[in-house]
């Protein structure tokens, strides 16, 4: 697989504050990467470096094999960007701004496709931008991004002002571009959205990537919730170091299992006569929370 986007040990200081410390991840062609992390972790800083607006102090980042700082203009011809906080010129209409953005990307605009998107997002392009709510301003950026093909979409919390219906439209759009073979970098706080759309996840905390990989792989790193009922008591479970937070209620054991010890669990419980075994896959949220909660000593 060819890497569309590669970030190698990027470090960025703002004065004495270290915003990014050796950030490293990559995104392959046709993949969607969920870029998640708490506020202030460095998501937007990373994205701005990728867009060639901030200059990395150390390390380098490449998009399409080109340097993001020196070849910004060439790179930008093939990408579409949606920021989380969209501000527009108050005295122009949404339709005018969309056309401007598209014309500057230098791509051919399929008018039908643009109209179609406006309809799907229920967007009225004839109003002046000063009259738009946050969600509507965001739609301007989203429609400009999806109305023409790009090889890489960089989306920085793109749905923060959308209602649930339009968020679904957004998710469809991401699926569609993915099917066309484009790559997407999606920074988001909506974990269900990331879970549904992304193949890969990179978690950033305090300026460093703390976890990166496919969602599948990450799930293996985390814990699975198990509900277990056995004919005989299995009180020795509590002594196993791959069992966490064990409770016993009405004859059912409820606990967290380290994902890579499923085999051990099966072997352990088999002699006790299994009546019921339910397992729930790890949610991204659990994974995320585990990283967020271990901030002791930080900040």
């Amino acid at each position, binding site marked *: 697989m060819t890497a569309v986007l590669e970030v190698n040990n990027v470090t960025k200081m703002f004065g004495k504050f270290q915003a990014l410390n050796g950030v490293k991840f990559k995104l392959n062609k046709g993949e969607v990467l969920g870029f998640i992390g708490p506020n202030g972790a460095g998501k937007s800083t990373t994205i701005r470096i990728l867009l060639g607006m901030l200059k990395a102090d150390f390390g380098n980042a490449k998009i399409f094999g080109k340097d993001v700082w020196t070849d910004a203009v060439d790179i930008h011809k093939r990408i579409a960007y949606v920021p989380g906080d969209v501000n527009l010129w108050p005295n122009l209409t949404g339709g005018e701004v969309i056309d401007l953005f598209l*014309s500057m990307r230098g791509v051919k605009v399929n008018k039908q496709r643009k109209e179609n998107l406006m309809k799907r997002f229920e967007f009225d392009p004839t109003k002046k931008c000063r009259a738009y709510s946050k969600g509507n301003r965001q739609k301007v950026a989203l429609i400009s991004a999806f109305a023409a093909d790009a090889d890489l979409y960089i989306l920085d919390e793109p749905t923060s002002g959308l209602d649930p219906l339009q968020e679904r439209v957004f998710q469809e759009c991401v699926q569609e571009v993915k099917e066309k073979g484009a790559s997407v970098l999606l920074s988001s706080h909506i974990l269900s959205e990331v879970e549904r759309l992304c193949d890969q996840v990179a978690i950033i905390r305090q300026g460093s990537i703390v976890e990166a990989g496919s969602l599948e792989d990450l799930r293996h790193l985390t814990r699975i919730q198990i509900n277990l009922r056995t004919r005989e008591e299995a009180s020795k479970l509590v002594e196993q170091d791959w069992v966490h937070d064990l409770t016993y209620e009405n004859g059912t054991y409820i606990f967290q299992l380290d994902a890579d010890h499923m085999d051990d669990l099966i072997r352990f419980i088999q002699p006790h006569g299994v009546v019921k075994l339910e397992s729930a896959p790890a949610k991204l949220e659990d994974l995320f929370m585990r990283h967020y909660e271990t901030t002791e000593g930080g900040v």
Partner: protein
Amino acid sequence: MAMHAHAQTGRLFRFLLKKEWLKLTIWLIGSLFFVFIGVFAFTEVYGDAAERQAMAIAMSNPAMEALFGRAIGLDNYTVGAMYSHTMTVMALSLFALLSILLVVRNTRAEEEDGILEMLRALPTGRLSHTISALLYLVLTNVLITVLSTALIFSIGDPSMTFEGALLTGMIYGTAGLFFGAVALLMAQLSSNGRGAMMLSFGILGVSYMLRIIGDSGTEVLSWISPLGLLYGTEPFVNNYWWPVLVALGITALIVILALYLQHRRDIGAGLLPEKAGKRHASALLKTTIGFALRLLKTPLIVWLIALLMLGVSYGSVINDVEGMLANNEIIEQIIMSNPDLNIVDQFISMIIGVLSIAATIPALQALLRLKGEEKKNRTEKIITGNRSRIKILGVFLGISLVTSIVMQLAQLVAFGGAMLAMDADLSFGSLFESGIAYLPAMWVMIGGAVVLIGWLPKFTGLIWAYLGFAFTVLYFADLFDMPEWLTGISPYYHIPEIPTDEWSWTVTLLSTGLAIVLAIVGLIGYQRRDING
């Protein structure tokens, strides 16, 4: 990399014109109207050479020079010379202001709003946005140059030669370019539009003051000031071209420096450091007054300093006015023939009028901040709290009134203090009386602004037009022979010019009463109307 620095500048520039054309048109019409009024009034009112020569004598004292600029072409005070002498500094300041606003609005302000970020994410060069703003600056000032030249040459009298008209147009455009370039540089230093604007206005203010001090004595200061330098071209009198070339050269250097800084720096970053803020709100900040004062703190302090300096500048030239009196037989004769007309007193009351209008600006600004908050959807957060509308507008009104008093007294102290330091012979009492007499007029302006906020929130800008008109009346009423009904619209016009005139309780009470009525009407409107954010 540099190759791509200006990619798609053309497209951005065309787009910039699309969003700015209306503003540009209005500014151009306003500016040309200003030029037109000047030329037209002088050709109409001062058609007679003897009259002009009399004016030349009245103008050739340090006080008038401090106001208008060094007297030029006195031996043959043609309409052209008169126009150059009296209008140039004002016009240069106006065009400088226009260009500062234009540049900040199209560079740092858009960067601050996040608009630049979206444009830079498109295949545009790192400097494209800035260069398109620069092109717009150039276009605007070329238009100002060409149109001013054409206007002056076509309606001026024979003394207004083509060369002089062209030079006048050139210095207007050059002033715009210079201060536009300064604003671009300041936009690199400060990380926000407001800061860039304040720094640029600061430099314009310093240029103005350097010129005042320079023109009333230390001549070298005038040449350091960009305003003084361009004034030194003396269009229609000597037509010196070299100051234009010097100014354009410096402008080019400033632009190169600004572009270099822009190309190097991160988006959103400023070169001046910002310090960390407080963790908790103080007890004062939690009160409505404390909150409002906090919003207004910086502009009020800046204004206080600016007005103090203005007061000191004018006060320090007072001795030259007296010196002039002692030596100049002609002026002495004027005074002999009309013992009521004392040049020093006239100068003082004129200056106090100018200072009073200047002090009205921060007072109005303090009040209109409430409208600004509404525009940014922030008043709703205050009003949905436990504070009533009346209380909020009342607090801003109170601060505005206190501002008018404090600013007025402060600059009177500065003005009087500087005069005393110069061993000038003056009565502090009558000086204060003169300044305080203007307060009711300032309050009428504030009352007018309250009415606009209460009833016509979309048109609060009109109060600036009204203040501008009042300034025109004060500055030019005598010069242009304005009719009484017109000048009477300005509240400042009715104020007695102490010490030349007597204190009038009628004017004081009527003006104050009018101000109170306006304020109450405005408060009622604010109580009833929709809050838009």
